[in-house]
């Protein structure tokens, strides 16, 4: 296949996300500019200007009308997807690390990093279609663990919030009371990614301990473990085939002594059920791969790398026969 290379970011990518229909692609990077692209041919559709720091996270509503982003500039901002207009801003004293719309997009969960003595927090907001009526105050604020929370997502039916952090712990919070319902030491090292599957049944986590794990979204039962040669920076579950894709590389700060062969700048597709069988690898990035996502139809996947490139891989027919 011939991947489409999209160079629009000057700095490393942090996160990529498809919209629900799979025709739009959102990329977040350290260059302050969340960008929207067309997913079929990779043409750039727009840039959301406004952030003053690296953008780590985003989520988009089901109707692809609203985009929410979180950034190191200590704000979470809501945008109009089509026009690029900033609709609302929530400000903090700490960098915002993760954002997630709840089911129905009436709720927003955002997390902030521990900073200047403040612990990490999960903040829940009630949303309204009318931007003017948006509340800047959270309906609930949960204090997280000492370490950084790298991602927090809504559980099924918005009853719970699931979070992962640098302490390798996986926690389930009650969305009503804010109590921790369940916590496990899911990984030995920092968990840097958590991606729910499109069908909402499970999620996959990626960690610096060179493994990715598949969990049941309800029970938090660990279903599978996929091992990798390098720290896993991002992972995704295919909606179409029994595959998961892992991507990673040395932690960006440690890339000095490796060759590209050893740096693992490739994405690895592994069988979801036969977790030790590798389907194949796709190379191409000149640096560690920080973000990866399958399209909702499972026919392509996009990767964002430390090298600032976004690569869109439409899989060939051969892939679907596997």
């Amino acid at each position: 296949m011939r991947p489409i290379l999209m160079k629009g970011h000057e700095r490393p990518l942090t996160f990529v996300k498809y919209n629900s229909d799979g025709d739009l692609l959102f990329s977040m990077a350290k260059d302050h500019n969340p960008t929207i692209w067309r997913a079929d041919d990779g043409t750039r559709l727009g840039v959301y200007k406004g952030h003053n720091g690296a953008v780590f996270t985003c989520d988009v509503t089901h109707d692809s009308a609203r985009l929410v982003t979180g950034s190191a500039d200590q704000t979470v901002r809501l945008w109009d997807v089509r026009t690029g207009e900033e609709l609302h801003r929530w400000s903090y004293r700490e960098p915002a690390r993760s954002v997630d719309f709840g089911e129905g997009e009436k709720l927003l969960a955002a997390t902030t990093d521990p900073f200047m003595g403040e612990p990490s927090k999960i903040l829940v907001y009630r949303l309204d279609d009318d931007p003017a009526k948006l509340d800047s105050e959270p309906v609930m604020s949960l204090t997280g663990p000492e370490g950084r929370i790298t991602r927090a997502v809504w559980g099924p039916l918005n009853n719970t919030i699931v979070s992962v952090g640098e302490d390798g712990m996986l926690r389930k919070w009650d969305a009503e009371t804010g109590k921790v319902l369940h916590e496990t030491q899911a990984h030995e090292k920092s968990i840097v990614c958590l991606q729910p599957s499109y069908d909402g049944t499970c999620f996959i986590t990626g960690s610096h301990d060179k493994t990715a794990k598949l969990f049941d979204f309800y029970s938090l039962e660990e279903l599978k473990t996929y091992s990798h040669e390098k720290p896993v920076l991002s992972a995704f579950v295919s909606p179409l085939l029994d595959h998961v894709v892992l991507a990673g590389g040395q932690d960006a700060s440690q890339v000095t002594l490796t060759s590209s062969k050893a740096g693992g700048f490739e994405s690895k597709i592994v069988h979801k059920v036969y977790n030790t069988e590798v389907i194949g690898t796709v190379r191409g990035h000149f640096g560690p791969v920080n973000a990866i996502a399958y399209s909702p139809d499972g026919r392509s996947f996009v990767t964002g790398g430390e090298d600032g490139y976004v690569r869109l891989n439409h899989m060939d027919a051969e892939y679907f026969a596997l």
Partner: protein
Amino acid sequence: MSKGSAMSARTRWGDDDDDLFGDGGGHGASSGGAVDISLPPPQIIGPDANGVKTYIEYKINEKNQKVKVTKKVKVSKYMRRVTPGMVERRKWTPFGDAANARDQECRTVASIEDIYLERPRLQAEKTELEKDKDKLAAMTKDSATLMPYRSMRLRAKYRELAQSLGIEERGDTMPPGDDDGPPGSGSMPPLPSKGGYVPPSLRGGAAAAGAAMRDRRDENSLRVTNLSEDCREADLQELFRPFGPIQRIYVAYDRETGESRGFAFVNFIHHEDAARAKEKLDGFGYDNLILRVDWAAPRPERADGEGGGGGGDRGGPRHDRGGGGYGRR
């Protein structure tokens, strides 16, 4: 590749993108960008009853020979759901920075080369082995080489040899579990054994393979400047390795401080790889500096005498093998 049916009329839409941006052609061996008037026009035949489409293209290779490239593809159709929302969004216009028509900062290009889903180890290595076998075969000066070419003579020979040593050469067969796997358990069917993917470095044909091996080093040598001080050979390895096997990297160091003087020479084995690397990495932002990559001017090589056999001691003694090795440590 999946794209709207409207686009299927074009032969290689990746090349078209190049034209859109006005970069012109000349990206390595397999590009069709620079159209030579004397070349016959490309043709598309089919799809035939089996759904096989044939693309025929002409290009000039390094030796200034006209090469006819025939590519057979199997076209399959699938249905894609298009929601009203998608239809609506197709009408959207760019905004923000994207609104600048010829925004130099952003480029969307289809990759010139094919990226393959590399199958796990044995498959990948097999391709390496075949590459070499093909190179050897190529040196027998066949003018019309069929890709991929398998040396029957060599294979038979090695099979015999392997038999004589009691090893079964698995040769072309797949690793256990991938081959005619146990039926009905969702195993993977084998890759099409004839045809199938061809590593780019072999695409240039026998002539290119031969030429590559006979290239003079200077032609494959790139000079990289504007490197950061703590840039090391290994960093350049990782940066240039994706383009192809590297023969040698030389980083200029300051004798006193031990830092890099900011430039280095990278020698590729194949000229095409060097050309691609130059094209891709010239102007590439690396470690907060913009790299400059040029062809190196021919210069006398330093004698690189790295002698001594064998690696160092790793916790165990290396006995002086009286019979082998030169013995000087």
